């Protein structure tokens, strides 16, 4: 493969120029690439027809290819809010449009306008037309969907202009991904991903020149085109973008626009973790304000903050950072149900008082009927997901979970957020399968995402002391890496109160950050203090509210590539949970449906959801329900 040149098809719009810049100018991979430009839909066709190895293609085209493609990690054309170049134009408001002429150049935009229309309760007739003719066809009750650079001039000519990037983010709470590099799994040789990322890095540094070069011939002002490349469009394919893309695929599938909803899978990421930028200020205050502004902290800086910054300073910096990452003033929560399918466990961690040894009279395994009743109740109460975790029960093999997940999926519209790394690792050992093989089978049976439990403190020395039989740091991370590669999203947790020092805490955060740089697969980080009551292991160190708030704030500052931080009101109490929304948290976690709710279930649930909303409001945010992707739910 590497012997011949890699054929790249890229969109011809201004927004793709930073991505292709290094290649176009021959600054990277000289002789390795052959690049040409076309309209988005044709880029995808080129890959399908074998004319190109890799194309900068719309997400809709990736979805339509039914999982046969891989994405290049880290690179996308995306927006979080107004994009300026995906517009619905009309003489009349959207509500009054009878027909919308779709731009044949972009399948993604066609799907997007229909998803957003349906969300408004609108389903105008759709017609397709060539890119160049759209503007002329818009008249009266016929609106038009226009994409690309033509939007700059066209937007001034119509009374009603809807920016679909802005519409999407305002409704869903996530970025929208317009295009990403995709190709067949075997298309790339080692080193190609790094070259593509380098090309973008060079392009990002040259955005001003690119904007200038575009502005004059196209008769738009330089400020507009530069703002477009620096504010409207961004080029990162991070965790939020992946969730946004997955939300788009899912919504498209729901309204019948995609037959399949393939997982977003990647070529291996060759990029090294981003290093911390040089520190500008020697003082703790300076460090905090730089971290608040988004500068990546080094390990030593993290330790310094953990050890020395005051509660209030950490909180304020974290709150500011949270505000940058979540500027809409929204705090989210989810309605789900925690189902512990068994309490039998051979891992027997010292801090755990839930597990029973296999053979113990108090061991249970939930039967299908019991499970069905719980799931029915969850659905009735508006739940979207179950958190499905157990002990490590040696009696339960892979087929148990496959059967159970198939049963759950066949009868209930619930997402399965299940099986922590320890459970998956033990299944792999039991079945003598590789970890990815186990995950693939679980996914085929219905697993949607993986909870981040069992991380405790990611330090082997501490783990040997508190949970000697649980998976090592390396294995925990490896399971997450494999899951992310297979297109699953997961969360990550940390439990403190095991006698850890600042270097252990920051070490834990650092390991998560490094993996996240590679996979972008973590949606959220959650921490809480060790609940020592009834446990064999004594509490070590401070687990009071203020330590929790410090941990939360530190995590918000250190984990710059984690989009979301959940507060843990279930363990820390609602008051601390609420205050946590001002110490870096942007999500109130789960309105957990009580385990044994019967007749009063409705009331219990209603109260707790409304209490959660009240907590969120009083902390100064608007509450929104979400799913596991942190996609807002109507």
């Amino acid at each position, binding site marked *: 493969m590497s012997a011949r040149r890699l054929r790249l098809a890229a969109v011809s719009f201004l927004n793709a120029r930073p991505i292709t810049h290094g290649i176009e100018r021959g600054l990277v991979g000289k002789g390795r690439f052959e690049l040409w430009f076309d309209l988005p839909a044709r880029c995808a066709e080129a890959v399908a027809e074998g004319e190109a190895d890799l194309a900068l293609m719309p997400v809709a085209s990736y979805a339509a290819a039914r999982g046969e493609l891989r994405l290049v990690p880290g690179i996308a054309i995306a927006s979080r809010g107004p994009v300026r170049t995906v517009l619905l134009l009309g003489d009349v408001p959207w509500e009054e449009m009878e027909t919308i002429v779709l731009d044949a150049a972009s399948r993604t935009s066609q799907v997007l306008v229909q998803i957003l229309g349906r969300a408004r309760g609108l389903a105008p007739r759709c017609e397709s037309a060539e890119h160049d003719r759209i503007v002329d066809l818009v008249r009266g009750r016929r609106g038009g969907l226009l994409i690309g650079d033509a939007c700059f001039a066209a937007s001034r000519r119509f009374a009603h202009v809807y920016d679909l990037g802005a519409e999407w983010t305002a409704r869903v709470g996530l970025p929208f991904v317009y295009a990403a590099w995709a190709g067949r799994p075997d298309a790339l040789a080692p080193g190609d991903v790094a070259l593509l990322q380098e090309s973008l890095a060079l392009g990002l540094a040259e955005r001003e020149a690119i904007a200038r070069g575009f502005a004059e011939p196209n008769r738009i002002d330089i400020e507009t085109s530069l703002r477009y490349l620096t504010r409207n469009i961004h080029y990162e394919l991070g965790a939020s973008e992946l969730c946004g893309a997955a939300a788009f695929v899912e919504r498209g599938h729901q309204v019948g626009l995609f037959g399949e909803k393939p997982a977003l899978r990647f070529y291996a990421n060759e990029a090294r973790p981003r290093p911390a930028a040089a520190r500008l200020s020697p003082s703790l205050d300076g460090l905090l304000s730089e971290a608040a502004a988004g500068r990546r902290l080094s390990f030593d800086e993290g330790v310094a903050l953990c050890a020395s910054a005051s509660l209030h300073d950490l909180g304020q910096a974290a709150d500011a950072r949270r505000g940058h990452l979540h500027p809409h003033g929204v705090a989210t929560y989810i309605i789900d149900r925690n189902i512990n399918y068994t309490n039998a466990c051979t891992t027997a961690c010292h801090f755990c008082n839930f597990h029973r040894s296999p053979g113990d009279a108090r061991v249970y395994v939930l039967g299908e009927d019991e499970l069905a009743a719980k799931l029915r109740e969850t659905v009735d109460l508006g739940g979207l997901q179950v958190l499905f975790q157990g002990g490590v029960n040696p009696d339960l093999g892979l087929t148990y979970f496959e059967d159970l997940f198939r049963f759950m999926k066949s009868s209930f519209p619930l997402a399965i957020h299940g099986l922590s790394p320890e459970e998956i690792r033990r299944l792999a050992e039991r079945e003598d399968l590789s970890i990815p093989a186990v995950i693939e089978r679980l996914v085929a049976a219905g697993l949607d995402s993986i909870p981040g439990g069992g991380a405790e403190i990611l330090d082997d020395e501490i783990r040997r002391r508190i949970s000697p039989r649980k998976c090592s740091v390396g294995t925990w991370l490896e399971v997450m890496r494999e899951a992310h590669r297979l297109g699953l999203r997961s969360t990550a947790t940390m439990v403190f109160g095991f006698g850890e020092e600042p270097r252990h805490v920051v070490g834990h955060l650092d390991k998560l950050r490094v993996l996240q740089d590679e996979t972008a697969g973590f949606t959220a980080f959650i921490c809480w203090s060790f609940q020592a009551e009834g446990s064999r292991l004594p509490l070590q160190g401070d687990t009071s509210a*203020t330590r929790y708030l410090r941990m939360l704030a530190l995590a918000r500052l250190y984990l710059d590539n984690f989009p979301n931080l959940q507060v843990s009101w279930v363990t820390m109490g609602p008051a601390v949970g609420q*205050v946590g929304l*001002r110490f870096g948290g942007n999500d109130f976690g789960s309105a957990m449906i009580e385990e044994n709710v019967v007749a009063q279930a409705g009331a219990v649930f209603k109260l707790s959801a409304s209490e959660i909303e009240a907590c969120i409001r009083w902390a100064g945010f608007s509450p929104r329900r979400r799913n596991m992707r942190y996609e807002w739910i109507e």
Partner: protein
Amino acid sequence: MSFARIAGRVRKGAPLAQADGLALFAHPDLMEVGSLANEARERRHGDRAYFNRNLHINPTNVCVSACRLCSFSRRRATDAGAFVLGVDEAVGKLRACLAAGQRPSEVHVVGGLHAGLPFDYFTSLVAGLKTTAPDITVKAFSAVEIFFFHRLYGMSIEEVLRRLMAAGLGALPGGGAEILSPRVRRLICPNKCGADEWLEVHRAAHRLGLPSNATMLYGTVETLGERVEHLLRLRELQSETGGFLAFVPLPFHPENTALAELPAPTAAESLRVLAVSRLLLPNVPHIKAYWVSLGLATAQTALWFGADDLDGTISEEKIYHQAGARTPEGLSADEIVRLIRAAGRVPVERDTFYALARPAAAKEAP
């Protein structure tokens, strides 16, 4: 007025006005308000956080006042659950506490408005406590009780106070202030003394050299304007007398009260009230985060939002626990010290007057 201008005024030591108070309550950034209050708190108290060893005694829950905010009181002495402690019984609680090796520096006494007790009962109670432990400060009877005594026994407020002081009364607690607004008092405690009368009792006490605290019950039916007005009225009296030691904002606990349909104030609101209090009351030395009503977590966090005092060990708290408080009824001094240290503050044990302040001993470290 913008937040920056308010911050400027605070830093210059200029007093804030009603509009500033409202702006601080409305300011969207809680952390900014908290930070400004923390600045004011640290300027005055550095890293110190105060607590005391105290004992609560409630001599009776029989009360003619029937406030809608209360779940502690019983209307008549014959109602189920009604009690009146005999003087010996009440003093016995202090003796038991001393016998158990506790070393309280203060007894806090508040009770219902019982129309059937002689005034002697109260003077004997104070005297009994004082003779049992002469070094202990008896901080007793809210302004509402003092005013009730004045009416019931036909004595001037000064006379009531003088006689209680003669028996050994050392300070007045700050209770019964609720919200110093006729409108709010009509709605939640119509039979309690009025706002002017509450202030009059404290003015009289301060003139007689009897220091006191002041509270504010927030989260019932008051407007933000009424909260600010409350704080400003306290500031005004303080600038006249200088007799307030501490201000204690109290979140309303609706459970078991006639106002049970109201939502309880949340932690974020409580932190803001504490912070705004610190900023609006520059002439009141201490802002107390009363852990019983706030919960330990919020009280601990409040040490970074303007508060410098957590109150004390208490031993047997009854009033808030009737209203569903889930905090313990008492804490050991070690536990309080641990909470303060964990919050990154320096624990200082104090007496009622914040006079005998001493750093907590090292042996009390966790």
